[in-house]
């Protein structure tokens, strides 16, 4: 890896570091972006439809129209992220040309490539990718992701998968940290990741990049739960704009992410937020409806 690429990667990791402790919100219009910024979001994710609608429609979901992305970009002063399909490096080239702050190679959109993720080292732009376990997270980092988010199950309003993924990653890191060097070689092979990266993770006792929780977070308590489990911050999608009072709920989720350790404040924040998004029992979904299984 050249020094220039390395320096660019460090700068991209640095931006994620500055987002820590914050909430990143999915938005589909300049108006929603303004609501998110006003509520205290640290960044917005520009996309054509929120995950709950993408899920309902079951059609091919692609990168948002640059018109929407640029309108959102000019509506707010906080960083703007946008999603591309897994493996769709041309969509990523377009977002880079638009000067987007972070690209999310996301399983929420329909994957464009069933075998390959984007070679993110070829880009100057920063990338965030989803992961369900340590192997997946480190593979994405190897490909050049400078931020990770747990996948959860987007568009369900059900936090159970986000919890599962974060707990699994934490457990696997603790396990890696308990291994001797020779055992680490075997574990790296089992996870399909490089020995060096696994060793670094074991030494740090955390992922070497910022890790946000995502997928199914719908209430302030959900956000605080993910923070107490060790997430560096939270992504919120349909949970806000599918509830009755998006402004109030967005603000509450931002507050809960900061005061995640203070039950008294959390009780105040959660009070009288109005009707929340309808949740989906994940057992009612068949395997092809699960977004988190996309990309590995």
């Amino acid at each position: 890896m050249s020094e220039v690429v390395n320096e660019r990667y460090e700068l991209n990791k640095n931006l994620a570091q500055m987002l820590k402790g914050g909430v990143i919100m999915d938005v589909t219009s300049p108006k929603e972006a303004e609501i998110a910024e006003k509520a205290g979001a640290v960044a917005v994710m520009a996309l054509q439809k929120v995950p709950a609608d993408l899920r309902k429609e079951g059609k091919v979901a692609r990168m948002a129209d640059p018109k929407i992305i640029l309108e959102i970009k000019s509506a707010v002063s906080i960083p703007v992220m946008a999603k591309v399909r897994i493996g769709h490096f041309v969509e990523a080239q377009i977002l880079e040309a638009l000067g987007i702050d972070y690209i999310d190679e996301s399983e929420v959109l329909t994957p464009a490539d069933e075998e390959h993720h984007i070679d993110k080292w070829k880009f100057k732009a920063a990338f965030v990718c989803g992961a369900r376990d340590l192997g997946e997270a480190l593979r994405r980092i190897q490909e050049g992701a400078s931020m990770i988010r747990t996948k959860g199950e987007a568009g369900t309003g059900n936090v159970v998968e986000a919890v599962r993924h974060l707990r699994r990653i934490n457990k696997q890191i603790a396990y890696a940290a308990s291994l001797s060097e020779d055992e680490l070689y075997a574990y790296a092979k089992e996870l399909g990741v490089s020995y060096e990266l696994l060793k670094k993770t074991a030494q740090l006792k955390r992922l070497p990049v910022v890790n946000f929780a995502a997928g199914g977070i719908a209430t302030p308590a959900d956000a605080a739960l993910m923070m107490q489990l060790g997430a560096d911050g939270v992504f919120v999608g349909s949970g806000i704009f599918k509830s009755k009072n998006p402004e109030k709920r967005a603000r509450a989720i931002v507050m809960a992410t900061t005061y995640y350790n203070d039950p008294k404040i959390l009780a105040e924040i959660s009070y009288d937020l109005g009707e929340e998004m309808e949740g989906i029992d994940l057992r009612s979904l068949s395997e092809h409806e699960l977004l988190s299984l996309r990309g590995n």
Partner: protein
Amino acid sequence: MKTIGVLAFQGGVIEHVKKIEELGAKPQLVKKEEDLKGLDGLILPGGESTTIGKFLIETGLKDHILNLINEGMPVWGTCAGAILLSKYIKDQGSGVLPILDIVIERNAYGSQLDSFKKEVFVPRFNIATECIFIRAPKIVEVSEGVEVLAELETPIAVLQKNILATTFHPELTSQNYWHSFFVKNVVK
């Protein structure tokens, strides 16, 4: 032992905490009024200035911190923190803690693609320090009484009595020059 507060709503909090510990001072996370008690100095970290500013207003910490700064408490804003302390933000009014006599322009270099790292000579330290600019602001005007400590075409580090501001992020490097300067020279 000096106790240095780090405003902990959001952003590069842990990075500052580690630096303070390395220098043998005691870090104190600040999220509520009672966390301000007994501080020898306060750091406002990088992050999103709109987000952090909102918390400052809604928690009422804004007035408490302003009072403490007026009474002489040393304060240091890095990046977003520098914006919060500025009396004037270009085209946007003022910072939430408008006490530093400068005009600052938010996001002045462009998007994340324009973030960069550069070594800049600091006359006061007689050494070049590594400066990391992440979606950084630019100080476009400085009033009398504000000392410019470092420049990269425009001022990037300024000192006005007990108020230090840097538009870059010393907490993201392996160096300790700026933290050492704040803890030893600004915090008395």
